[in-house]
Each structure stands twice: as C-alpha cells, then as structure tokens.
C-alpha cells in the first residue's frame, strides 16, 4: 500500500492553452469572413498592416500581461506611452542625439513603473488607484512639457519611421514590427524560462502562498510594474515612430484597449492564468475589427462604436463557449 495510484482526470487538449487557441481561432475566422466580404481584404499586406498598425499595442499588451498575471492592473500605460512620445519629441527638438533621447524615454518609463510598483508593494495601496494616479501624473507631465503636439523632425527617427522592409514581394513592414515581435519573444522567454517569470504566475495564483513558499514576491510585484513601465515607454517610442510626433492627448483610453486585448487573449484578471501569445492574438483580433470597419466604409460614427462593442462581445462569448465546452 506504499505506492498510491492517484489518477488525474484525463486531459484531452492541454486545457490551459484553450483560451489562447480559441482567440487565434476567432482571429482566423474573422479574417476569413472579412476576406469573403471585402475585395482586397485577403491580401498579405492587410495582414501585415495588422502588425504595422498595432506594433505599439502589442508591446503595451506584453507589459500589461505581466502585471495582470500577478493579479494587478496598470491603467497608466496609455498615459506613459503619451509621455514617451512627448519626451522623445521634446528632447529631439532640443537637439539631443536620438539614442540619448531613446534612453531617456525608456528610463523615464521604467522609473515611473518602478515607482508605482514600490508604492503598490510597500504601502499596500491598490494597483488600480496607484496606476490611475500614475496616469494622471503622466498626462499632466505631458502638458507641462507642451500643450501642443510637437513634430519629430530628427532624420534618424524619420528614417526609422518611414523605412520599410520587403521580406516578400508585395509585403512591406516597418522596423516597429520587428521590435514588437522581439519583445514578445523575450517576454515569453522571461515568463516561462526564468524564475522571475514563474514567480509572476505564482504571485497571481496565490500571493500569500507564494510568500510562504519563500519566493521573492515583493521584488516580483515591483518588477512587473517596472516591466510594464518599460514596455509602455517602448510602446510609446514605437507610437512616436508611427505618428512622428509627441502629444499629450496621444493614446487616450488606450489602457482599456490594451486590457481588452489581454483579456480577449484569455488572461484572467484575477491573475495567474494567461500567455503573451494570447495577448498578441487579442491585439490582432481588435486590429481586425478596426480594419473591418475601415473596409466597410459606410458606418456612421455611432454605428462604428456599436459594431466595435458587438464584435468584442461576440469574441468574448465565443471564447467563453469554447473554454466551457472543453471543461
């Protein structure tokens, strides 16, 4: 009787990948539907444009994934991205070398994130509030720098922004896409192949347990906000390449888009469950919605909003259904 035979329930498809798989399925389906409905939709360039137009969102979503995995939330990402565009534009205008300017942006973003993380962890203030205050702060700082939008005229930035790659005939993509994809790969590696990443999941699963298990929960909780801050800054830089300008009202409400993308990608807001791949899929789904609407071309302003909401709903319900069926 010394060896117990405790069989676990049969696992058919790895259950934890289901939400991600479901999101990818939704993406493929919508894209397919778009291709049937609209001429010119089924081109590789339209697909590539999803990445080109959403590179910054992907980077922000990666950072947000870290935070949400620990059970936190970061409402400051949009504002920090806007601040990044502003700092980049302002410093470049002041004649800083582009690299220094980039470093300044990344440093500021990371520091802001770090600061919020420290407050959240050491003072035990709810992340929602701290990052909401962080959002006010970052937006306010934008306006302190300048209330108007500032153009980026630096040749290096312009070259990076307008430069394109043509890996295949008829498909052009920007450097931003490569950066975003690199960020995704690094993030996936960090989450699954480092102790930091494992601890992120552990904290999301049960912070009290993680602490009793002797994991450095404090460091990780602060760390994810720093990661998110860094990603917001990097996303902001990509955004400033996309727009070639800095403006305090850039990326208003983007935090909600990012959260939506992450959640549509199957990550639970309660923490502990989710993958960056899911977040990427989430961004692609939301991007497809926008593309569909542009191709439709007859929607009035209000119908645009209604359709965005309804499609979001359809995705979430579909995903729920898939995940539930599999249970």
């Amino acid at each position, binding site marked *: 009787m010394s060896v117990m035979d405790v069989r676990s329930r049969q696992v058919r498809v790895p259950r934890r990948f289901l939400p991600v798989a479901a999101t990818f399925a939704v993406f493929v389906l919508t894209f397919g539907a778009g291709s049937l409905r609209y*001429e*010119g*939709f089924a*081109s590789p*360039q*339209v697909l590539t*444009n999803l990445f*080109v*137009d959403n590179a910054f969102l992907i980077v922000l979503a990666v950072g947000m994934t870290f935070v949400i995995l620990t059970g936190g939330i970061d409402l400051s990402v949009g504002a920090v991205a806007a601040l990044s565009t502003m700092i980049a534009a302002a410093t470049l205008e002041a004649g800083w070398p582009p690299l220094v300017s980039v470093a300044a942006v990344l440093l500021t973003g990371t520091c802001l994130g770090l600061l919020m993380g420290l407050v959240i962890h050491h003072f035990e203030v709810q992340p929602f509030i701290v990052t909401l205050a962080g959002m006010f702060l970052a937006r306010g700082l934008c*306006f302190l720098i300048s*209330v*108007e*939008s*500032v*153009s*980026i*005229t630096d040749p290096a930035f*312009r070259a990076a*922004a*307008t430069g394109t790659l043509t890996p295949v005939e008829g498909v052009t993509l920007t450097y931003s896409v490569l950066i975003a994809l690199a960020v995704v790969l690094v993030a996936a590696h960090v989450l699954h192949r480092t102790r930091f990443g494992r601890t992120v999941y552990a904290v999301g699963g049960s912070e009290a347990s993680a602490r009793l298990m002797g994991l450095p929960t404090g460091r990780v909780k602060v760390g994810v906000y720093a990661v998110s801050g860094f990603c917001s800054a990097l996303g902001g830089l990509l*955004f400033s*390449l*996309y*727009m*070639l*300008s*800095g*403006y*305090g*009202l*850039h*990326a*208003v*409400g983007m935090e909600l888009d990012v959260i939506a993308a992450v959640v549509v990608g199957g990550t639970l807001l309660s923490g502990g469950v989710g993958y960056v791949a899911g977040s990427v899929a989430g961004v692609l789904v939301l991007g497809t919605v*926008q*593309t569909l*609407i*542009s*191709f439709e*071309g*007859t*929607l*009035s*302003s*209000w119908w*645009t*909003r209604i359709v965005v909401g309804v499609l979001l709903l359809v995705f979430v319900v579909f995903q729920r259904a898939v995940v539930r069926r599999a249970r």
Partner: protein
Amino acid sequence: GADGSDGAGDDGTLTLGFAQVGAESGWRTANTESIQQAAEEAGIDLQFSDAQQKQENQIRSIRSYIQQDVDVIAFSPVVETGWDAVLLEAQRADIPVILTDRAIDSEDDSLYETFLGSDFVEEGRKAGRWLVDNSDGPTNVVELQGTTGAAPAIDRKEGFEEAVSGSSDIEVIATQDGDFTRSGGKEVMEAFLNSHDDIDVVYAHNDDMGLGAIEAIRAAGLEPGEDIRIITVDAVRAGMEALAEGEINFIVECNPLLGEQLMELVEQVAAGEEVTKRIEVEETTFTQEEAEAALPDRQY
C-alpha cells in the same frame, strides 16, 4: 489588391476615402452630414470612417484606403503633427490627399494637394475685435477654453489675445479648460462666478460652452447677455437661437458645411488639376440682429 477597385475607376465613378475625426460635437456631425450629402449629390463613392478622436485610428483608416486603392483621400486631422509617414505612403501609391477643417504641421507640403478649412486664429481675432469695438471702460473677461492642446483652442485663444492686446481696458482675468462641452462650460463658469464677482464678458471657444455658461449665469441670478456679455465661436443652431434671444451677444461663425467645396476639389484633384494650397471656407460673424435674420434658413 490593386485590381479590386480598378473597377470603380472604370465605370467613371470616383471613390473618396474620408477619415473623419469623430462625432464629438454637433458641429462635427453637421460637417459629416454635409460631406455625405455632397458626395451623394456629386455621384462620388464615399468610403467613410470615424476615428473616435484617435489619431492612430485615423492613420489606420488612411492605410486601409491606400489598400483599397481609392482615388482621393480626404481627412480632418485630429492633431496637426505626425502625418508624414502615412502621407508618404499615399504619395507612393499615387493617391492625392486633401485636408479639411484642420491643417497639418509638416515641412513637406507636397504631401497634400490642398487644405480646405477655417482659420481658427482669425476666428479668435474676429471675436476680439468685436469686443474691442463694443466696450468702453474697464472690461473683465473670463475665457472658457476648448480642450487643452486642441488646435482650435490654441488658435482661438491666440487670435483673441492678439486682438484685445491693443486695448488697455480689456483684461482676461481667468481662463480655464471647459472641454468644449456644455457641462464643462457650466461647471467652470460656476467656479468663476464664485471666485470673481466682477465678470463683464465671457469668451467661449465654442457655442456649447457658452450655452453651459448661460445656465450657470442664470442660476446665479444674473441675466446672460445683459449683466454678463457672451461671445462664442461656431454658430450652431442652439447657439444661434440663444443669440437671437439675446442671451449671447456675438458669435463668430465656423462653417462646417464644406461638403460641396470638398467634392469640387476632389473632382479637380482626381482629374490632375492644380489647386491652391489653402482654401478658406466662407465664414461670417453674427450679431443678435443678424442671427434673427439668418435663423430661418440655417441648415444646422
């Protein structure tokens, strides 16, 4: 997807891709309707998208118009800067671009064919000039600004300041962001009324804030238009009605009805004609008497 819309060109109809800012005000809605109606009348195929006040959405729409290979692209830029990359793309795809309503700030003006819209600074100046002409003695002005950082807000403020700077009597004693909305205007005005008891004139960057201010003034037991004079910009219907009733004293028009002018331009540009870089929309100003006369046949 080039062959997709060649068909559109073949049967002679033009396709116009129009990327609207959003539907943030009655003015904007009138602007949208004017464009839609004019396109229909001119027999132009309109691909319309609404960016919900987000520049990235607008850029995305323009990209998709390039993908759809429309004949002309027009848009009202959300902000002045940051259009170079996408406009370059349009240029490479040989699609002419027309700006409406708001200008862009780019060194390379070959990126667009023409800009059709109002001169916000001039609107501010008109408001200021009227005040200078119509005030004697010390005049304390409070200013209800549009959304911080928005081009009309900046320009209308600048123009107004420029025009009143000559007069030593006129002083702007407070200025605050009222977000272009009625409730914003009302709330800010309430605060002004509580902290200043010597307000003579309200200058609001749009009608809606002015209408909100009227509510606040009335609630404070004062007579809008009499005790405190009100100057606004836009001339939407509700504003004009208030003007006719004597609650507003002066409105500078900012005309949203540029659909017809736009369609003409689209046809010219598509035909490869050379057009001037800057085309101003016809705009006027209204006093109370003029408003009464104009109201019956205002379209919006």
